[in-house]
């Protein structure tokens, strides 16, 4: 028993290494060198989320269109992405973007492009489900009063649909935040790769290092979820009046 406890405490005795390299886990070599670590993960997730929201919104609305030349490309895009692993999409952009553009592309840019393209397909499906979940009478009332399709979307349908979508959006964005770790495969110095750098440099304390980054991922995702709950409550003000 004693030997076991000694062995166990030995496994977790090297917190000093984590502490000494903590700034590297948080921001990489910044400000002397390039940004990395957790900050890089967050930057990629935020840009990815922002881009995927707008593209996903556009693709989702195209998918809902009664015009086939709009709906069809959206459907093909969504189906292809949903049937492909994210890692594959990251490789596509890593290998094909320089060929298509004719010049070198920073790995970080390739990774962000892959995240946007990948997440947009899922956001598009969330948008579609959100719009379809509204009663048909809302569209009929809006169009019946003379509003155009676009006006009905902007003033009547989307304000309601977007609120319904918040929980699914946040799920998607929590996934994306965790999935930024995949960018290490094309050598983007985000949190997971930073952790591995520290380990390969010291060859010590793997448990402590990887436990620490797990905790960091968890905190970020937890904050995101809590924020969305708050947002949801704020936007559902008109609904909660039901209980008055």
């Amino acid at each position: 028993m004693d030997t076991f406890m000694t062995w166990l405490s030995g496994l977790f005795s090297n917190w000093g290494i984590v502490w000494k390299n903590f700034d590297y886990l948080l921001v990489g070599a910044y400000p002397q060198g390039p940004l990395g670590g957790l900050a890089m993960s967050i930057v990629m997730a935020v840009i990815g989320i922002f881009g995927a929201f707008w593209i996903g919104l556009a693709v989702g609305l195209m998918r809902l269109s009664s015009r086939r030349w709009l709906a069809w490309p959206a459907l093909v895009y969504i189906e292809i992405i949903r049937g492909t692993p994210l890692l594959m999409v990251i490789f596509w952009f890593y290998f094909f973007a320089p060929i298509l553009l004719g010049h070198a592309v920073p790995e970080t840019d390739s990774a962000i492009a892959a995240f946007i393209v990948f997440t947009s397909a899922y956001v598009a499906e969330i948008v579609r489900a959100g719009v379809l979940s509204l009663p048909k009478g809302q569209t009929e009332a809006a169009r019946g009063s003379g509003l155009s399709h676009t006006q009905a979307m902007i003033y009547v349908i989307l304000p309601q649909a977007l609120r319904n979508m918040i929980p699914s959006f946040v799920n998607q964005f929590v996934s994306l935040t965790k999935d930024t770790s995949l960018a290490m495969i094309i050598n983007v110095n985000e949190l997971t790769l930073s952790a591995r750098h520290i380990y390969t440099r010291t060859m010590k304390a793997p448990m402590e290092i990887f436990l620490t980054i797990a905790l960091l991922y968890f905190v970020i995702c937890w904050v995101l979820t809590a924020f969305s709950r708050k947002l949801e409550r704020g936007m559902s003000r008109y609904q909660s009046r039901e209980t008055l």
Partner: protein
Amino acid sequence: MPLIEFRNVNKWFGDFHVLKNINESVEKGEVLVICGPSGSGKSTLVRCINRLEDINQGEILINGRTITGKDQNLNELRAEIGIVFQQFNLYPHLSVLRNITLAPVKVKKISKEEAEKTALRLLDRVGIGNQAHKYPIELSGGQQQRVAIARALAMKPQIMLFDEPTSALDPEMINEVLSVMKDLAREGMTMLCVTHEMGFAREVADRIIFMDHGEILERGTPTHFFTSPEHERTKAFLREIL
């Protein structure tokens, strides 16, 4: 020239022949009540007038001009025709006032101040002037339906369509909606009402038509309709509903 005219109108939902060779016209200022069992096509008939449904054959004219052509501007057409639904269909995320001013401001490009003034006047007229800043969910069903009527009137329509406006209401709220509709009829609004409220039909309608299986079986004044209906189907319907 009638205000609204149906000429040989036919419509199918897939294999289901929902409107069969409809010929009918409505004069300006007339109140037409459309009744019949569910599935008889009466709602569809009304919803064809503002093109929420499209017909397959024949044509519909308003002021002598066809509105069922491919090149008809739907938004212009609908701005002239108010519609009130069974389920109210108020916008839950907007206040009562914004529900009413949305279309006048966005479609007719009326200034916000002007539209709000009109909206408050209309809310007074339907008896809920003090509820302008509440949200639909805070109102009773009868109040919500009166907001829906005010919302339709805010566009200053030539024609008002009512698609079973009291069917989703608790019995004690039906009269407050009907009395608003009666006022409207008295003021000379052209109205087409799909309804089962036979008291309302008797008192307010200029004419009643009875539909079954997509056909108009009976048409005439309320007196004719209630005292000497010709068709057996009408008699059976009246026996059941009265």
